[in-house]
């Protein structure tokens, strides 16, 4: 399905995205939302207004013209927060709740795991860990972690 772009997108001085469509609708502060943030991140992106009403649907991000795509990608980057765990450095205890010190693609961080049920299996090798504040940490492929991390992680699986 080729994407016919029927809207204009700009960023204003307040750093908000401004949306204009053919019907003359102008909306400030539109938010791009991924429909399948984990399984198909680049497919099905909706532009919604601050109240959550859908303004436009983008089937594939790659169908968009470059400047819009860059705008949307930048906005998504500033909103999405799912650090990917690259290494487990330390786990305070094997009995939950325990504090994990990890290295992620966004730098080093510490979080608290409340219970083993907060580790969700996405596929056989990828895991999603929800910390005590509701932030999700992703382990894309636990087999590709180093030996020590795998050993620590194994205690919780």
């Amino acid at each position, binding site marked *: 399905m080729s994407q016919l772009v029927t809207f204009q997108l700009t960023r204003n001085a307040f750093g908000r995205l401004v949306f204009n469509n053919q019907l003359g609708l102008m909306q400030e502060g539109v938010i791009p939302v991924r429909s399948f943030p984990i399984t198909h991140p680049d497919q099905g992106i909706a532009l919604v207004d601050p109240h959550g009403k859908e303004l436009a649907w983008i089937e594939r991000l790659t169908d968009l013209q470059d400047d819009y795509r860059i705008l949307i990608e930048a906005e998504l980057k500033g909103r999405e*927060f799912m650090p990917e765990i690259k290494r487990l450095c330390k786990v305070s205890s094997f009995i939950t709740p325990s504090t994990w010190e990890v290295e992620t693609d966004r730098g080093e961080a510490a979080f608290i795991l409340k219970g083993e049920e907060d580790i969700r299996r996405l596929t056989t090798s990828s895991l999603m860990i929800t910390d005590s504040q509701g932030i999700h940490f992703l382990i894309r492929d636990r087999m590709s972690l180093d030996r020590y991390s795998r050993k620590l992680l194994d205690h919780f699986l």
Partner: protein
Amino acid sequence: MQQLYNSSNNNFPQSWDEVLALQLNDEENVLAWIETDLDSQLHFSKGIVIVTNQRLLTKMYANEVWQSWCYRQGLLLTQRDYAGIGCLELLDAHSQLMSWRYRVRSDRAVNRLIESFAQQLDCHLAGELSQAADTVVQCPNCGAIMPNGQNDCPVCEKQSHAPPPTWTLLRLWRFAKPYKGRLLIGFLLTLCSTAATLVPPYLTMPLMDNVLIPYQNGQPINNELVALYLSGLLGASILAWILGWARTYMLALVSERIGADLRTTTYEHLLNLSQEYFGGKRTGDLMARIGAETDRINLFLSLHLLDFATDVIMIAMTAMILISINPSLALVTLVPLPIIAWLIHLVRDRLRIGFEKVDRIWAEVNNVLADTIPGIRVIKAFAQEKRESARFYAANQRNLQINDRVNKLWSLFTPTVTLLTEVGLLIVWIFGIWQISKDEITVGVLTAFLAYIGRFYIRLDSMSRIVSITQKAAAGTKRIFDILDHISSVPESANPVHLATVQGQIELRNVGFRYGTRRITSDINLVIKPGEMIGLVGHSGSGKSTLVNLICRFYDVSEGTILIDGHDIRSLPIAEYRKHIGLVLQEPFLFYGTIAENIAYGKPDATPSEIVSAARAAHAHEFILRLPHGYDSLVGERGQALSGGERQRISIARALLINPRILILDEATSSVDTTTEKDIQEALDNLVRGRTTIAIAHRLSTLREANRLIVLDRGSIVEIGNHAELMAREGFYYRLYQAQVRNVDTEDRGFVPIAEHSVAGEHK
């Protein structure tokens, strides 16, 4: 001066204290701060935002320079958050000046930052001197505001998710105290029975030295001596048997009682907690805590702790006996003990992880079952039996895999313990033979040593388990005490006022309510006269249910007061006050039991005729008679299937029977169709007569009877009046009403675009 302020008064985080001191001007005071932990690209990186009485200061950890903005016209500091990530923005009239990102930990700290910024800005613009800083202390760790005079931050404490220390178990003493006499007897019995079990090995020594060895050396067997020793052996064994039985029975009795007390106390406490507590907890979790955790603690007390105590006593006594017989051989015997204990512990630890895994995977198998059996209609309707059985197979397969791995280690365990024991015995043999050859000990002594040592090497295994079991029991105890330590947010009044009768006048004065950091209602003033019917109207989320919850005192108001007949409801005993309120909810809840019991739930001593007349008034009498067992038919879970309308009428009868002065109808008719609604409406009319009534209804048409309608929007009253007045005013209510009338024919069309979407998505 400022130094003093920074470090002592506002508890500023240490890492920033020094660099900040260089930045501050004279007479510049820190008023509020937050520590941010993300940069603009959402990478983990520390930063700080500070509001002082002169400006806004900020610095990222990785960045050398401080940025600052002095107060000027048009500046605005705002925050928003999404999925746990907060964004704080500084704007002026033309553009965004700066933004900060952080993981949301304490809303109050951020709100305080924004408030003090706005306050300072106002002061500077008005040219006033900034007010003296209030002495609020922020937690150096998370930035939350600390309660007056406390050193521990409540937010951090709540989040200090460190595993509970073992001493948590000592808190169980509160429950053990009533049984201390029996516990003491149990302990003495343990001592005696352990001592009794140690007699037989001791008797092997004279048996060997005085009977068998002399016989081998050509002397006849001394029958009297043999009879004496053997009867001593038998006697000691029987004594140990009786004492062991008495001890186990006594302590099991006590621990079972401690467990039961723990369970009932926790449940009782739980029932008295406010609605707010239940709102934030999962039912399954609470059930597990009261059921499984108390059981685990119980088991720990009655079995593991007892065994461990016995073992320790036994080892201590054995050591004493061995040393008294022969110190040097005793030393050789006891030295390998800690080494063997440590080795066993190592293997145990591995095994424990494996067993925990088995537990978890077992839960997963159960989850598949719990998922599919209730959803069996859906599975059959979509013909997915194959897939579900494949899912179950996969879970089982994983179960097998993990079990295989654990069993590899587990099967090694018992032989290993045996081997270690044998090695220990071997050492004793070697040293013993050497000593016998030197004539330092007799054969009997060596035999006795071997008999003793064999016993406690075996016990080492069970002793090594105590560490992990204690940890688990401590975790369970903590989870129980989490409930017990929770103080109801709706406390009983210290000097309650007893009202014999209630007229039913309700007055709300400046009522405001916050849930966490979110303001739900604010500044509501309303007087409801006795016998008046009030309708609450507004969009969902406008605060209707909150208001009802406040009037029922499921929650306490954050600001203002609610008065009933001129008395603050907080001064009345809670249970007594709620007796005056009849509540009919959208989803009527029927308990397992007969219909009569359900109707009489609020007044268990009601007579049959009272029940029947309540049912008649609720228009429930006839359909109840149609059931095979009439009023004695079972309802509730696994009981007679009743329709939504029938359940609702039973719940109306329930409210009618207690004859309350105040009646609250929370969407009482919205879950049934229009014809049933008419039936219920008639029943409700009987109920409403002569009572102060507060009704919430989604369908505005059902509120036509109301004396006054209160229109709420975003937590405040926007209009008051009856239907005709409000329609004439053409305001908020008018629009709401119009939208509802229109909705009837637009509802169907609303689905079309969604359907198109999904089809397009599938075919692509």
